[in-house]
């Protein structure tokens, strides 16, 4: 159902008139009916009281002379009073003396005379009167009168009111629908005009007033308002134009600022690039430092081998110096002196007789000597080969980094180990190996070697710095769960304090007097470049440390 306030104004006016009319009608009807009911009740009281008085007066003799029959006859006259349903006469003592009951015994008499007066109860009017004679109360009469008549009358009133209501409502609807036009028509026209304006956005439209009443004023004000809107529109347009100009200038300013900013950003980017390059160079220098370390190792090893070469060479030269070749020269000289009588000399001369035995001894001696020297020379050769091997190892790792090669992990570790073998021996570090079976992998060999050499060298340093009697280094290889290769370098050296575990990988951090703080940093970087990681574990100072290098396992393609 639509609410009243949403109704069209003409309907609203009709409802107003009809509502006002019907409300006043209903109220006046209620007033009339109420008054009538009151009057009817009053007249009923009056009438029934009179009836009771007459009946009471007529029944005095019957009461005085105890003639109940006569009293009952008297009450029988109430047949003609259709509203009196019950009548009772009580004697002076309050006993029931005579009764009348229209409904033949269905009604109950009050057993005692009710108090004098009247009462409306349960749709009945009860009237009770004292019967007096000669100044004395000789009895009571009680009449029980139905209000049916009154109710019938009210019912008729209500019907009449309803009929009048409907009639007057119809009349007021017809009348108001005509009269309300004078008010609603101009308002509806105004509403239409407003609607048209809002749809067409044409504020040039004007309305024409019909009368000079309040609606006429409304029309005038409406026109004034339209005029103002037009002016305001123009003002807004102007302001808008200005604003656009402002926005344009501000945009160009912003553009300039933006350009500046972009330039700054570019500069900053360039600075960043430079920084990256510097860092890269630093990395390269670190790697060079690593290379130098390898070179140091190589030279050390070479030096060691050279030492034994030196010994071997000296041995050989000493042997040669002690050689019995001079004895042979003397025998040859003796034989030259006795060239003419060689046979006599050998056969008869005492010196000559010893020559064949001497030669035999000499030849045996020389043969031994040759064998010794050959042996030394072979050793020498072997040591030279060793040097060659060391140098060729160095050469093989000195190549350009970033090139992946097929490498056997065990060989790689052994190479790294051999680069450190001299210092490991010197510091009495026992080395054990625990290799898992890992097929050859593809890896940047030089980076891996650099890391391993560094780790082994660190382990050796850690062992050397500790007071441990049995210095020990173990290298393990494992295939990781997530398709990785793990190389564990485990030492029982000085260990790492817990708070150093991560710092040791940062640039410039070192605990060694001669350290430069590049080693582990560049190792970690190299591990990252391999696509892997380098992690340190230690339970604290004196407990040793474990470094784990982990990189993705890329099996080498099968060689056809």
């Amino acid at each position, binding site marked *: 159902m639509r609410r009243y306030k949403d109704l069209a104004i003409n309907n609203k006016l009709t409802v107003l008139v009809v509502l006002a009319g019907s409300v006043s009608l209903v109220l006046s009807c209620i007033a009339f009916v109420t008054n009538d009911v009151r009057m009817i009740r009053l007249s009923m009281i009056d*009438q029934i009281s*009179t*009836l009771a008085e*007459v*009946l009471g007066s*007529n029944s*005095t*003799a*019957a009461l*005085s*002379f*105890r*003639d109940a*029959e*006569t009293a009952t*006859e*008297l009450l*029988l*006259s109430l*047949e*003609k*009073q259709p509203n009196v349903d019950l009548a009772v006469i009580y004697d002076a003592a309050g006993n029931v003396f005579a009764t009348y009951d229209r409904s033949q015994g269905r009604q109950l008499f009050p057993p005692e005379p009710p108090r004098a007066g009247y009462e409306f109860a349960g749709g009945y009017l009860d009237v009770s009167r004292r019967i007096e*004679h*000669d*100044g*004395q109360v000789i009895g009571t009469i009680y009449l029980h009168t139905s209000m049916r008549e009154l109710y019938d009358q009210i019912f008729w009133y209500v019907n009449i009111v309803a009929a009048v209501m409907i009639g007057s409502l119809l009349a007021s609807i017809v009348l108001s629908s005509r009269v309300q036009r004078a008010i609603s028509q101009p308002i509806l026209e105004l509403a239409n005009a407003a609607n048209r304006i809002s749809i067409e956005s044409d504020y040039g439209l004007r309305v024409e007033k019909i009368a000079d009443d309040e609606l006429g004023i409304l029309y005038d004000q409406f026109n004034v308002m339209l005029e103002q809107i037009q002016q305001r529109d123009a003002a807004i347009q102007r302001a808008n134009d200005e604003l656009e100009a402002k926005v344009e200038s501000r945009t160009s300013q912003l553009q300039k600022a933006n350009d500046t900013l972009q330039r700054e950003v570019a500069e900053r980017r360039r600075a960043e690039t430079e920084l990256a390059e510097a860092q890269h160079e630093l990395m390269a220098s670190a790697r060079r430092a690593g290379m130098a370390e390898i070179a140091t190792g190589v030279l050390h090893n070479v030096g060691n081998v050279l030492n034994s070469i030196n010994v071997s060479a000296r041995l050989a030269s000493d042997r040669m110096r002690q050689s019995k070749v001079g004895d042979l020269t003397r025998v040859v000289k003796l034989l030259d002196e006795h060239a003419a009588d060689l046979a006599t000399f050998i056969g008869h001369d005492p010196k000559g007789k010893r020559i064949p035995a001497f030669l035999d001894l000499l030849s045996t001696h020389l043969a031994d000597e040759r064998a010794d020297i050959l042996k030394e020379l072979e050793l020498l050769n072997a040591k030279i080969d060793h040097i060659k091997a060391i140098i060729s190892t160095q050469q093989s790792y000195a190549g350009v980094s970033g090139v992946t090669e097929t490498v056997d992990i065990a060989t790689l570790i052994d190479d790294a180990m051999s680069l450190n073998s001299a210092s490991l021996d010197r510091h009495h570090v026992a080395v054990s190996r625990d290799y898992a079976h890992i097929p050859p992998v593809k890896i940047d060999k030089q980076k891996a070697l650099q890391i391993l050499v560094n780790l082994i060298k660190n382990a050796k340093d850690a062992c050397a710095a500790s007071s441990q009697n049995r210095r020990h280094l173990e290298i393990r290889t494992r295939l990781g769960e997530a398709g990785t290769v793990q190389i564990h370098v485990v030492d029982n050296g000085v260990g790492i304090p817990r708070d150093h575990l991560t710092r040791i990988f940062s640039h410039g951090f070192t605990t060694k007097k001669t350290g430069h703080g590049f080693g582990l940093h560049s190792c970690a970087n190299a591990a990252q470049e391999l696509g892997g990681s380098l992690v340190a574990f230690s339970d604290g100072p004196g407990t040793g440390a474990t470094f784990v290098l982990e990189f993705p396992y890329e099996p080498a393609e099968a060689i056809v």
Partner: protein
Amino acid sequence: MSAVSRLVRVTTIGMLVCLLVCLTADSSRAQPGSVINRENTLKALFLYNFGSYVEWPAGVFASENEPFEIGVFGQTPVEPVLREIAANKKINGRRIVIRRFASIEALRPCPIVFISDDVDSTTQEIALQSLAGDHVLVVGESAGFAQRGGVVNFVVESNKLRFQINVGAARRRGLKISAKLLSLARIVGAASATAE
């Protein structure tokens, strides 16, 4: 008001019907034994009540304060009951005084004189004669008393105490009997009136 007049009319008709019924039932006389106690009481009550339903001429009572005298002639059990009523009640605002007349010589006119059954019929006749000129409501309780010149006579009908009224005798004695009282009474005396 029409309703009231209608009611009055109906009441009158009702009373007449009642009277008719009572007259037809006259002959049937019930056992007096069962009634005897109540009968005396009722007779005393009725005698007292007659005082307010009958109007005496103005000269009967000399002053406002003069008591209302009820005379009793003859020995009767009604008297003590009547004396009891007289002690408690008033008639028209007057005290009630009971006068007992032991003999016909002692008999004097009172507003009401009750001649009991105890008095023989000859003496009753003399008494009636002696009171004939006075404004006295003469009440009896003997058969044919009203017809013989008494104004009121008690009779028992269908085990009920009723009374006959000789209207002519009342008029002769200057007494105005209320219509209400008449409506309850058996009206007699036409024969007696013509005989007088």
